[in-house]
């Protein structure tokens, strides 16, 4: 009874006082959903920092080349193997190419490959997971397909894919776009399985929840049921797979480049830079650190970003 006016009227109007008791808490004015999502996201410090770092990396990599105009493939043999200096802040490699320029060019490819391959794997994985979990008839065949893909040895498969499709894709899209499509598809269709399994498990559990039965009992079609009731509720595992998927895609791309299956040797990516630098690890350890740190920072920031987004999109967590 902090409000004096309530105190005055209470004895005269006991009925009103009882009515007021049922109003357990003051109602906040209604706010838009996205304002609340942003509020929750802001309160997750790791996500905020992760988001800022990720945006910084993306901006640096895509806008940086306009400010730092050295051509990443320009060979200045007199300046080779130089350490960090004003002319070359990150130093140069064994052919005298500027490492900063190569880092930015490589980052463009690596991030683009990571995001696209992740999106592809996620799309495939979620689709197969939802369909397998929702339609009992398809569960067996689709999960056996998933097992089959998990059992396939990755490297021979990629070798065959590159062998078969590199030339036609090069002809159709040009060497760079062609190999980009090849790599993204190769990574995408070999990394959707964990997502599919996780999503299927969640869908199986959700399908038996009462709100799904309730929706069904008013004649919701299967498609609407999946789109409005199942998918929003499996967002959390999908988000987690997504953040892990980016990391996985960047690292797989690096491994492919190293084996000569990926982008051509003179075409920089973070993975390529990393593996080029391993030969000089003892003399010039900083050359390993630049791409290594870039990969780790990207992966870590995306992980935190995903964590925060997942929390912000879940009304149960947002409400607290």
């Amino acid at each position, binding site marked *: 009874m902090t409000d004096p006016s309530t105190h005055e009227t209470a004895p005269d109007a006991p009925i009103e006082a009882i009515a007021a008791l049922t109003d357990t808490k003051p109602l906040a004015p209604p706010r838009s959903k996205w304002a609340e999502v942003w509020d929750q996201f802001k309160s997750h410090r790791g996500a905020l920092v992760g988001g800022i770092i990720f945006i910084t990396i993306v901006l640096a990599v895509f806008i940086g080349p306009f400010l730092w105009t050295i051509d990443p493939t320009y060979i200045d043999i007199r300046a080779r193997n130089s350490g960090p200096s004003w002319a070359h802040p990150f130093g140069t490699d064994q052919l005298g190419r500027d490492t900063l320029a190569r880092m930015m060019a490589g980052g463009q490819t690596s991030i683009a490959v990571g995001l696209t391959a992740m999106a592809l794997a996620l799309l495939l994985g979620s689709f197969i997971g939802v369909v397998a979990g929702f339609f009992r008839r398809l569960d067996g065949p689709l999960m056996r397909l998933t097992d089959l893909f998990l059992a396939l040895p990755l490297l021979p498969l990629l070798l065959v894919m590159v062998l078969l499709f590199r030339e036609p894709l090069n002809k159709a899209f040009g060497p760079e776009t062609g190999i980009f499509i090849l790599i993204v598809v190769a990574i995408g269709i070999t990394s959707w399985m964990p997502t599919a399994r996780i999503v299927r498990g969640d869908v199986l559990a959700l399908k038996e929840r009462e709100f799904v*039965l309730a929706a069904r*009992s*008013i004649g*919701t079609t299967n498609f609407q049921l999946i789109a409005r009731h199942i998918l929003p509720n499996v967002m959390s595992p999908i988000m987690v797979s997504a953040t892990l998927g980016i990391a996985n895609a960047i690292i797989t791309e690096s491994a492919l480049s190293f084996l000569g299956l990926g982008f051509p040797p003179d075409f920089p990516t973070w993975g390529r830079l990393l593996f080029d630098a391993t030969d000089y690890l003892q003399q010039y350890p900083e050359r390993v650190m630049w791409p290594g740190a870039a990969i780790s920072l990207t992966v870590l920031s995306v992980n935190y970003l995903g964590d925060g987004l997942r929390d912000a999109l879940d*009304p149960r967590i947002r*409400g607290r």
Partner: protein
Amino acid sequence: MTPALRLENLSKTFPLGRTLFGPERPGVRAVHPVTLEVARGETLGIVGESGCGKSTLARMLVGLLAPTTGSIEIEGAALDTADPAAFGKRIQYVFQDPISSLNPRKTIRQIMEAPLKLLHGMDRAQRAARIAEIFDLVSLRHEFLDRYPHEFSGGQAQRIGIARALAAEARILILDEPVSALDVSVQAQVLNLLADLKAELDLTYLFISHDLAVVEAVSDRIAVLYFGSVVELGRAEDIFRAPRHPYTKLLADSAPVVGRALTPPEAKETELPDPLDPPKGCAFQARCPRATAQCGQETPTLAELADGHAAACFHPIAPPDGPAG
């Protein structure tokens, strides 16, 4: 007058599928053929222990499960297609766990709008008006519409569940243990609300519960289910004042009463028979104190013993005042 709901020989058998090489196995009989009639404006209580087929029966009634045999007739019209959209406008389901029956990712408004949009194709203004009307009926505040299900208590969430069922404008509600997940004090609130709504909107209820006190308080008639079949059917006051079937008596004696020490009424095995291997004869014989050789051979059928009071038993308990039927 046509009854609100008529079930004829409704049964459900869940198939087990075949083994790899063997022949097809017989299914699990969750509900044995049930014939029931519910008059308009009546509340039929359905009582029975866990696993006796209460929920399977209810799910068949709203079209979530297709019956194996038999037919469902709602307000004179036969509905046996298991098409939820056709059922939705006539009969609605209120779930046991109020929180879990609301999608956690949707606001109450979205939840309430779904049946209006899908079943009645209303536009935005009509929907808003209808929701406001229903929320007044169940005494929920309109500000709740923009909130998410986890922000509500069990009682409020159950009222939202009831509001959603009312939104479909169904005349028959299946209440599947609507209060068993709630606090006792909140139970009374929800039960009173249900009684008010029934009087106001001329609804028919099928009230499923294992809480005898609640069922007795709200029901006009009660059907006792055991192992998938109705073993006793009668007016609510008769059923527990003078049970005729030994199982009903057992149920009544098992219910805890305030001020009385809890004593198990039966010392023997208290499990339901194995549905994969149903016993011959009466399903209750193993637990029945009055079982005879006849019970092991034949299956009793529901027979009228007195006015409006039927039991499926060869040796019904005699009523305390009056001759045995």
